[in-house]
């Protein structure tokens, strides 16, 4: 906890020194304007919500009927209850990622949106923060809808949903920042295939559909190093239980990922556009 606070202070001074909230808000405002000006974006927004929901219904509820119960922290729970928090984390991940990969990449590489923005007082780190805030808004929109569905289906309590909400937001923040850093390395649209494959692999093997302890030990270790696993464990721990100190480790992992992503993305945008 202490290290987190010290790291936080260093980050505020180093990475975010001189950041203007007004300029970050202006970057967010640009996206609000784009959202208002066409219906296409709303469709994209909706599709991102339905995908994890369909998985929840087909696998969580459908396959769940065959599976029965799964032990979570020594307590047997319905399979759908096990899968639902994972789908929530996935929904937060993909919501944030699609915003900071597809949209950011397009603006960065093709629309030259950021070239125009950087001719104003706005700095790279402010662009990155603005885009991240926007990605977070999208992610929270998904998360909220999904939590409502979970409560309605009896997959978590209202208390669990309230606790899981900020956790899902942290997942969105971490993946949003990482996604933006990745976007600055993508060479073209063909690289999105790699990204999609990576995302799908995380989606399948991050303790989403079966407990990681069921995997061979080498595999389990690999999984515990990947980010979505920590997202899933954190969200599940808060929505279903058991809450414990390990949740802090999961949260810390995601915080570090968010800061690293922000740092890399800001550096890269500055390095590539301010030449």
């Amino acid at each position, binding site marked *: 906890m202490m290290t987190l606070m010290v790291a936080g202070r260093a980050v505020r001074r180093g990475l975010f020194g*001189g950041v*203007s909230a*007004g*300029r970050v*808000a*202006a*970057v967010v*405002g*640009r996206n609000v*304007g*784009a959202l208002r*000006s*066409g219906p296409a974006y709303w469709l994209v927004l909706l599709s991102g919500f339905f995908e994890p929901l369909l998985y929840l219904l087909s696998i969580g509820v459908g396959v769940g009927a065959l599976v029965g119960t799964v032990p979570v922290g020594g307590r047997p729970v319905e399979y759908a209850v096990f899968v639902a928090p994972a789908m929530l984390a996935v929904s937060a991940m993909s919501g944030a990622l699609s915003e900071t990969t597809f949209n950011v990449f397009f603006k960065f590489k093709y*629309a*030259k*949106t950021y*070239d*125009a*923005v*950087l*001719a*104003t*007082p*706005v*700095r790279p780190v402010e662009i990155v923060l603005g885009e991240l805030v926007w990605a977070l808004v999208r992610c929270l929109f998904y998360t909220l809808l999904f939590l409502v569905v979970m409560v309605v289906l009896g997959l978590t309590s209202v208390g669990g949903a309230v606790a899981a909400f900020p956790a899902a937001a942290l997942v969105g923040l971490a993946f949003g920042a990482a996604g933006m850093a990745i976007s600055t390395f993508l060479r073209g649209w063909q690289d999105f295939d790699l990204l999609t494959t990576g995302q799908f692999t995380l989606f399948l093997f991050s303790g989403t559909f079966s407990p990681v302890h069921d995997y061979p030990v080498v595999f389990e270790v690999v999984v515990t190093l990947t980010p979505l696993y920590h997202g899933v464990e954190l969200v599940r721990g808060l929505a279903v239980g058991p809450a414990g100190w390990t949740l802090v480790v999961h949260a810390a992992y995601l915080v570090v990922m968010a800061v690293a992503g922000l740092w890399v993305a800001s550096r890269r945008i500055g390095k590539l*556009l*301010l*030449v």
Partner: protein
Amino acid sequence: MAEEPLIFARGLVKRFGDFTAVDGIDVSVERGEAFGFLGPNGAGKSSTMRMISCVSPPTAGELRILGMDPVRDGVAIRGRLGVCPQLGNLDTDLSVFENLTTYARYFGLSRAEARRRAGELLEFVQLADRARGKVEPLSGGMKQRLTIARALVNDPEIVLLDEPTTGLDPQARHLLWERLYQLKRQGVTLVLTTHYMDEAEQLCDRLVVMDGGRIVAEGSPRELIGRYSTPEVVELRFAGGADVAVKLDGVGERVDSLPDRVLVYARDGDAVVAEVHRRGLAPLSVLVRRSTLEDVFLHLTGRTLVD
């Protein structure tokens, strides 16, 4: 006490790897001036403009904009500049009006102020009737005017225009020149790059000719023409071709043989035409005209300005 120049560069260099785009230039632009960088593609104009816009750190040399250091005080300087880039980067996801209001917000203008400015500027560039429309269907000239409006949204002290009229039809160019002239009359300092001689002559009080990253000449359009050319130029076209130049030896002050025509520089063009006929030469066409910056450029760099 004389005011510090708005833009001051000494020995300014920009290198990209092994390639030297700008090779040690000295420039100084005073408040209220219209200053031009003239030169062919690849002369280093755009690299210079990017350094002045504080979006490209100089490799070497000294550069001060509005009395500040562009690397350290970039945010403060950019807040007082208006940049109109060569490649259109208007936001196609936003309406014409929102392109301006959004941009205004980057400069910290309030929402109300941004809307007021956007309305005014769309009137100024004659796009008020397109305010609610999309950017994509606008013509090249309209997009360029919108980009200029966007560059003015923060009421800048210096407006930087990188080839503002390239690719525009004559009508669109003239409308744009007229608007830029109005800005100049309002006291805005204009810095522009161009490879059009007529544009430089129309708009610039003072200009530098760049070639290969260096400044090869500096002065007002009139001064440059006076220094590097003659008052008049006679353009002659012959059926035969190259060997004609020899027969023109001693006609006028200087003879330039181009692939398609011969240029004779002289104080009195009509006298040259008379002399050509006296020597028994029969050109296919004869054009006597006033000397332009094109001639200056040709003289300085030894080639025509064809990109």
